[in-house]
């Protein structure tokens, strides 16, 4: 633990008196011993990605890996699932559509849309197959369509669960299937009013009895009022058989991806924290999700730091707020997490979590826009992150933005890119 604390963040800039510049990318990770004071002028700092085509190029992986685009021209791919036979299932869609609340929403919505794809929401699942094992996914089928912004995917036995933005649904699935044999059965309705943060992350419990669903908040920090936040900003546990739901952990502002750590069989999440408190507040995070724990939103952040923007304040909630396990650079926007396969051949990436960082908007110096690897030992984070997939930005242009990451049984990492609408496969070179 001591060694872990020793990799505490260096707030390169904050240490310099009078320097209001932003810490360089990559400095705010792991344990946090000191957070800067909230800051911010009249307008939030914004740097929006300027999209450009890959034009035959690809992101960069560490030596020993090759990167291939296994599918292009998808319709907003977000999360992927590797099925037992090696097929890749891709959830495509874009949800939300929260009504404009204040004049700011018009302007911010217009500006932020410039940094995302022009593709329309696919609302479907696409299945990719590499039948001969050569790393080329020559087979491509629409597995199911007419869904409502599908995002989280999980397989339990012969049931494929899909988290739409408004409901958890289920398909029957047999290995080798390329098309859903019947329409989806609703397992449980999910909170969907407004859906400011619409993504519904999903993972199955190790014993296959439950599903965990990540439900984001309906605002940055409660500015729509707290009534609309009922059952938001939390992880639900859903009974896979009956569809009964209950809050499992709360105060998680936007838990965008969930995964089970294979050694301790513990549930982990990546969470997007709040904006407009400055370039190095609030750290996004990777954390184990403990049952009944409260992670602060909206009353407090990173433990018991009170957010002054929330009234009425709630001292009891602030005191209950727990500190997440592992900070990720503020505003880097983690949208994907997957743990390394137990039998990974590459010792550098044998134990730990791959995290897809979609990239910032609320910061003048962009951060994220890459996939990192957080090393673990005995089921806990054990050191600073390592860049795994980079090169999404070049010369001020942005070619791609990573979302979901998945590890396939052959040790390859599957990365969904929702700007270029591509699925990247990062495979160990033979």
């Amino acid at each position, binding site marked *: 633990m001591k060694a872990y604390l020793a990799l505490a963040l260096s707030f390169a800039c904050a240490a310099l008196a009078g320097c209001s510049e932003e810490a360089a990318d990559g400095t705010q990770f792991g344990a946090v011993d000191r957070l800067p004071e909230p800051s911010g002028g009249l307008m939030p700092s914004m740097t929006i990605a300027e999209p450009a085509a890959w034009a035959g190029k690809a992101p960069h992986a560490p030596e020993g890996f090759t990167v291939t685009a296994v599918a292009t021209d998808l319709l907003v791919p977000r999360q992927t699932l590797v099925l037992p036979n090696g097929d890749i299932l891709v959830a495509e869609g874009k949800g939300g559509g929260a009504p404009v609340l*204040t*004049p700011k929403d018009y302007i911010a919505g217009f500006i932020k849309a410039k940094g995302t794809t022009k593709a329309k929401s696919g609302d479907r699942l696409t299945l990719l197959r590499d039948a001969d094992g050569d790393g080329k996914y020559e087979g491509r089928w629409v597995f199911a369509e007419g869904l409502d912004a599908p995002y989280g995917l999980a397989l339990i036995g012969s049931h494929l669960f899909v988290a739409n933005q408004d409901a958890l649904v289920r398909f029957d699935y047999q290995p080798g299937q390329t098309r859903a044999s019947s329409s989806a059965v609703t397992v449980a309705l999910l909170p969907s009013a407004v859906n400011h943060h619409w993504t519904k992350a999903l993972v199955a419990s190790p014993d296959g009895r439950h599903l965990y669903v990540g439900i984001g908040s309906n605002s940055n920090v409660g*500015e729509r009022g707290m009534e609309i936040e009922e059952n938001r900003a939390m992880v639900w546990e859903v009974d896979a058989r009956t569809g009964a739901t209950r809050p499992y952990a709360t105060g998680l502002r936007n838990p965008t991806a969930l995964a089970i750590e294979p050694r301790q069989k513990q549930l982990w999440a990546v969470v997007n924290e709040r904006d*407009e408190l400055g370039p190095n507040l609030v750290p996004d995070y990777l954390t184990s999700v403990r049952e009944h724990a409260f992670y602060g939103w909206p009353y407090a952040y990173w433990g018991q730091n009170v957010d002054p923007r929330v009234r*009425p304040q709630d001292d009891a909630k602030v005191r209950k707020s727990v500190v997440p396990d592992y900070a990720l650079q503020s505003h880097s926007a983690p949208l994907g997490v997957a743990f390394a396969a137990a039998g990974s051949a590459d010792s550098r990436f044998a134990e730990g979590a791959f995290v897809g960082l979609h990239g910032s908007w609320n910061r003048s110096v962009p951060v994220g826009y890459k996939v990192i690897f957080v090393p673990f030992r005995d089921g806990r984070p054990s050191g600073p992150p390592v860049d795994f997939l980079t090169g999404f930005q070049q010369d001020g242009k942005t070619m791609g933005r990573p979302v979901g990451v998945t590890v396939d049984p052959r040790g390859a990492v599957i990365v969904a890119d929702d700007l270029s609408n591509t699925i990247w496969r990062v495979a160990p070179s033979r």
Partner: protein
Amino acid sequence: MAVNSLVSGGPDGLPRNEATTLRMHAVVACSSLPLFLGTLLSDWAYASTYQVQWTNFADWLNAGGLMLAVVALVWAALAEISQPWRRSGRRWLATALLAVTVVLGTLNAFVHAKDGWAAMPAAPVLSLLVLLAAAAASVVGLARLGGRAQA
């Protein structure tokens, strides 16, 4: 007979259509007043109830008042430019007060764009200043209109 002149037009010797223009301008400038007053009252309501929709409402009211004030300011500026020979005593003052209203209103819009309590306590202070500036601009502008009418 200022009141009568507003109805009949022309006793100040201005061509009839110019009098109409002046009055329309006054109407636009004055209509921002109730919106700015609403902004201030909504800020007050938020501060005393913590009901966050009041501050969102204040944001819209200020945006509405600001839009009218911008129209009034552009109108006044165009009048200054197009009729320099009519430059009389305090005509510039109403224009200047409109400009102050627009600057403060814009500032207030940015402050209200902050989430929840982050807009406090600057929001009601600015809302009050905007209201005072808009009221002053209206009073000066109307006085000029009335003064002309009586001349």
